[in-house]
């Protein structure tokens, strides 16, 4: 029923003029909100004129033209589609107006509008299709344009509220589900290097989602459309209003720039937007990094609002567990309550205590709890007070450890970062806040990348693929996981300094944090080395990983098995955090291959590389500086004592000469100095034993002249006292002085609960080594019947006469059992084998021990190996029976 031919030329010309002027206004003012409202006006007027030309007034009783979606919201971006609904009273009306609808749509295209029309009857609008929820959601933003007002009123007042309230659960659940899927697609983060203004978390889609959920919640309460007029409702932006204005300006800019509906803010677009200060209050030229930080701040506001509303969506089914979770439970020792997985600050409680705030983040890291919206606001408001209340020293380190070690560490750290707490504790982190590094690989900003790295390591607790399972095995073997995670947190802070090596800069920045946390020298050195070397494994993987020279060069940089494990896990997590596609199974397998090769190299080359003082004067000086001057005997010639410094320098040189390089790599200068003092004291007491309690283990160090059976005797005494040896190493220098270290768990807490027993324990060791007591007698007095193992480990022995030029390497993998080490050592003694190096390790129920052996000063020949092998197999079998 087309009334008159359409004046398309005039309409097109008018639209083009309006569009040009609109663009010029935007270029001048940068006001995105005004631009999209004005375009809505222009297109609305145009459509009304089109429709009135096509359908005379008297014939419009049974059809209405309705703006929906962005057009309905009066938010028509420069190149967005125009969503229009042709609403028909019933099925008979639709064919009657078919030609008009077609003509109208065609005219829109001819004029230059991208029409997105839909035709529905009233009855069809009553049905909600879960597969086409977008249509129902678009009706939330409906607006009358032309046609029958009566029909529209019936639709808006009588039909739509009933449909929405009836299908409320379906609509809300599906909205939340679609949002979660979209967020997951974008890594659940706003910190993309090249974000999509519309779809990314924190983008316009999230802004609209928040509007829809707020509207739907309000409808549920009032059982009708909200009393506020549509404009007023959408006008109550409050805090997100500036974010909305900013996002609108950016999207307008992108549309004009590309000439189409392109919403990707790539680097070039960022540069241009910054140059033109798009979205900023002050016009001028802005630095792209500063401009992007504004983007992330605005996106964070929008994302936070949307996330809180999504979280508040009621679950689909009421379960007993979920009802249980809804119960409001106080968190002991704090003013917080836990309800439905969210931590809420009690009404009237003040946020003034840094200690309890940090405890809350520890809970978040452990359980994955979230903070309620109001609690987040109150913490953010209290930042100036908290800034002067934040703890330092061991308490701070304990709190930070709780956060870092929790499986939800990244989640807790992100919240701390968003609220400004993280930068209060670690100001060094400020430099990488929303920092964009422009390269073709990194998908996220540096801070977000750091949180992903931490997350990737924690996710190894539940490995999915084979290559993840292998790497996951390294996690429980870490000596100091807390220090490892601290390294991850700090490893890229150096990127804030744009020049030089960021690894070195990160180490420098970490020094002040070490001081605030009051970490000791050993702890600092662990973190320093991990951060300093964190790129070495990736660099080695770009070479031939099957070439022994590549493995050797890499292993020498890493130096110790402990560092190697940390670096392997860090490299895995770091690559995976660059982008979701970066860590392929191919790359993961190469990583594992390099790890194995380097680990074997570190174990098998121990005997080859020995220390010679002349080779490293700097290191030698560092140790000498720690040794206090000692009195020395007068010189026979002069009658005067030689200079103390000359005396202990020579003695130190003699002590270190011939010790494996591994000894120096695994001890700090302070520890070496301490063990040198023990060696000096051998003059007075030929057996020196030192005890050191560590965080979760204990350690004894034995320094004494070497003799057969020494290792077996010490192992026996430890076993007799109920100690479980988890690590040990035994080294000897060129002068035949051994330095053996045993790390063990005190199964019965004997030493921890009875301080006086420490001296008796040490005396027992001395007496055993001087044969004043029998080790066999000590061991018989204990009940050492081995418990049934949970995991059976077969015994494997592997001899290697090529690993060292002067020793035979023997690797033993067997079931860890009390008394095991003693039995192995007794086998060696019985076979007249001398241990030159021992490396003891325990992995769950498996003991993995590596020994470098000689017999008569030479490697073991085939016959000796065969005999020793038979003896070991027999002894180990007897031990287990």
């Amino acid at each position, binding site marked *: 029923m087309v009334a008159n031919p359409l004046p398309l030329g005039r309409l097109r010309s008018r639209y083009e003029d309006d569009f040009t002027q609109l663009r010029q206004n935007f270029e001048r003012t940068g006001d995105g909100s005004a631009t999209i409202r004005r375009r809505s006006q222009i297109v609305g007027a145009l459509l009304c004129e089109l429709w009135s030309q096509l359908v005379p007034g008297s014939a419009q009783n049974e059809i209405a033209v309705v703006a929906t979606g962005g057009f309905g919201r009066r938010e028509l971006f420069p190149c967005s589609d125009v969503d229009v609904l042709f609403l028909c009273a019933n099925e008979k009306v639709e064919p009657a107006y078919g030609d008009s609808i077609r003509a109208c749509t065609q005219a829109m295209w001819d004029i230059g509008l991208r029409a997105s029309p839909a035709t529905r009857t009233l009855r069809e609008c009553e049905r909600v299709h879960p597969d086409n929820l977008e249509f129902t959601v678009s009706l939330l933003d409906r607006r009358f344009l032309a046609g029958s007002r009566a029909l529209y009123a019936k639709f808006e007042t009588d039909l739509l509220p009933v449909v929405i309230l009836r299908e409320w659960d379906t609509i809300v659940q599906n909205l939340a589900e679609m949002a979660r899927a979209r967020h997951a697609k974008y890594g659940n983060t706003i910190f993309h290097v090249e974000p999509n203004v519309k779809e990314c978390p924190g983008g316009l889609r999230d802004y609209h989602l928040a509007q829809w959920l707020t509207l739907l919640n309000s409808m549920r309460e009032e059982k009708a459309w909200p009393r506020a007029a549509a404009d007023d409702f959408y006008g109550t932006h409050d805090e997100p209003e500036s974010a909305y204005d900013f996002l609108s300006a950016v999207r307008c800019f992108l549309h004009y720039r590309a000439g189409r509906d392109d919403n990707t803010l790539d680097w070039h677009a960022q540069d241009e937007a910054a140059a033109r200060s798009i979205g900023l209050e002050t016009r001028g030229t802005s630095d792209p990094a500063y401009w992007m930080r504004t983007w992330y701040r605005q996106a964070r506001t929008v994302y936070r609002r949307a996330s809180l509303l999504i979280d508040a969506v009621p679950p689909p089914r009421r379960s007993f567990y979920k009802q249980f979770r809804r119960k409001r439970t106080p968190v002991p020792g704090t003013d917080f309550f836990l309800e439905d997985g969210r931590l809420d600050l009690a009404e009237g409680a003040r946020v003034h205590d840094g200690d309890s705030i940090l405890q809350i983040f520890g809970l978040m890291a452990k359980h994955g709890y979230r903070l309620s919206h109001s609690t987040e606001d109150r913490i953010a408001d209290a930042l100036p007070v908290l800034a002067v209340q934040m703890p330092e020293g061991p308490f701070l380190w304990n709190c930070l450890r709780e956060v870092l070690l929790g499986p939800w560490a990244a989640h807790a750290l992100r919240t701390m970062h968003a609220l400004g707490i993280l930068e209060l504790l670690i100001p060094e982190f400020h430099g990488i806040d929303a920092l964009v590094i422009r390269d073709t690989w990194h998908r996220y900003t540096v801070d977000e990348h750091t949180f992903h790295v931490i997350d990737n390591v924690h996710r190894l607790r539940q490995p999915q693929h084979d290559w993840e399972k292998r790497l996951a095995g390294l996690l429980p073997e870490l000596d100091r996981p807390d220090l490892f995670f601290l390294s991850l947190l700090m490893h890229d802070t150096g990127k804030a300094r744009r020049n030089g090596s960021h690894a070195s800069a990160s180490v420098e920045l970490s020094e002040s944090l070490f001081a605030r946390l009051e970490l000791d020298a050993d702890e600092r050195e662990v973190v320093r080395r991990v951060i300093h070397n964190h790129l070495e494994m990736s660099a080695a993987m770009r070479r031939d990983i*099957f070439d022994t020279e590549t493995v050797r060069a890499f292993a020498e940089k890493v130096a110790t098995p402990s560092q190697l494990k940390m670096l392997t896990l860090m490299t895995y997590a770091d690559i995976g955090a660059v982008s979701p596609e970066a860590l392929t199974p*191919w790359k993961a397998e190469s990583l594992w291959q390099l790890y194995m090769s380097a680990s074997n190299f570190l174990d098998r080359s121990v005997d080859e590389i020995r220390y010679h003082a002349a080779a490293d004067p700097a290191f030698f000086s560092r140790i000498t500086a720690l040794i206090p001057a000692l009195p020395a005997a007068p010189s026979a010639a002069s009658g005067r004592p030689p200079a103390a410094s000359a005396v202990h320098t020579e003695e130190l040189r003699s002590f270190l000469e011939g010790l494996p390089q591994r000894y120096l790599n695994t001890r700090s200068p302070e520890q070496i100095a301490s063990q040198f003092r023990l060696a000096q004291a051998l003059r007075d007491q030929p057996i020196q034993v030192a005890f050191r309690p560590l965080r979760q283990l204990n350690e004894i160090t034995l320094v004494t002249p070497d003799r057969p059976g020494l290792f077996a005797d010490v192992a026996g005494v430890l076993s007799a006292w109920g100690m479980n040896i988890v690590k040990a190493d035994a080294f000897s220098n060129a002068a035949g002085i051994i330095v053996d270290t045993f790390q063990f768990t005190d199964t019965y807490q004997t030493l921890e609960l009875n301080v006086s027993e420490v001296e008796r324990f040490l005396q027992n060791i001395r007496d055993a080594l001087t044969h004043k007591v029998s080790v066999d007698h000590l061991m018989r007095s204990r009940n050492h019947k081995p418990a049934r193992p949970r995991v059976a480990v077969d015994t494997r022995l592997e001899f290697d006469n090529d690993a060292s030029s002067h020793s035979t390497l023997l690797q033993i993998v067997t079931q860890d059992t009390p008394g095991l080490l003693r039995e192995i050592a007794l086998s060696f003694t019985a076979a007249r084998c001398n241990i030159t190096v021992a490396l003891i390790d325990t992995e769950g129920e498996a003991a993995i021990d590596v020994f470098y052996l000689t017999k008569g000063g030479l490697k073991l020949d085939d016959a000796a190996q065969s005999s020793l092998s038979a003896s070991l197999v027999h002894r180990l079998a007897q031990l287990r029976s």
Partner: protein
Amino acid sequence: MQKIEAVIQPSKLDAVKDALLEAGIEGMTILEARGHGRQKGHTEFYRGREYTVDLLPKIKIEMVVRDEMADQAIQAIVSSARTGKIGDGKIFISKIDDAIRIRNDERGPSAL
């Protein structure tokens, strides 16, 4: 037009890419691959367990070039990927009937 498929050592990728660019070859596809020739893989013992890598990690580079560029491309690959050791890789050449640019339906060598 000819298709060149080269299986090389991963550590040689950067050198080969640079050599190809220098030779005027700009379009190529890089794939992570696994394979072995006569050397039949690698075995490593770690903590009492044997890990056998039957299929070693390799990189496969594919490109389609005009006939007159083929020799240059092959020479660039050979000279930059060679180490002289077993495992250097192989190059395969095949004829291409046609090439089409998706964006604008351009066909033939000009679509390369």
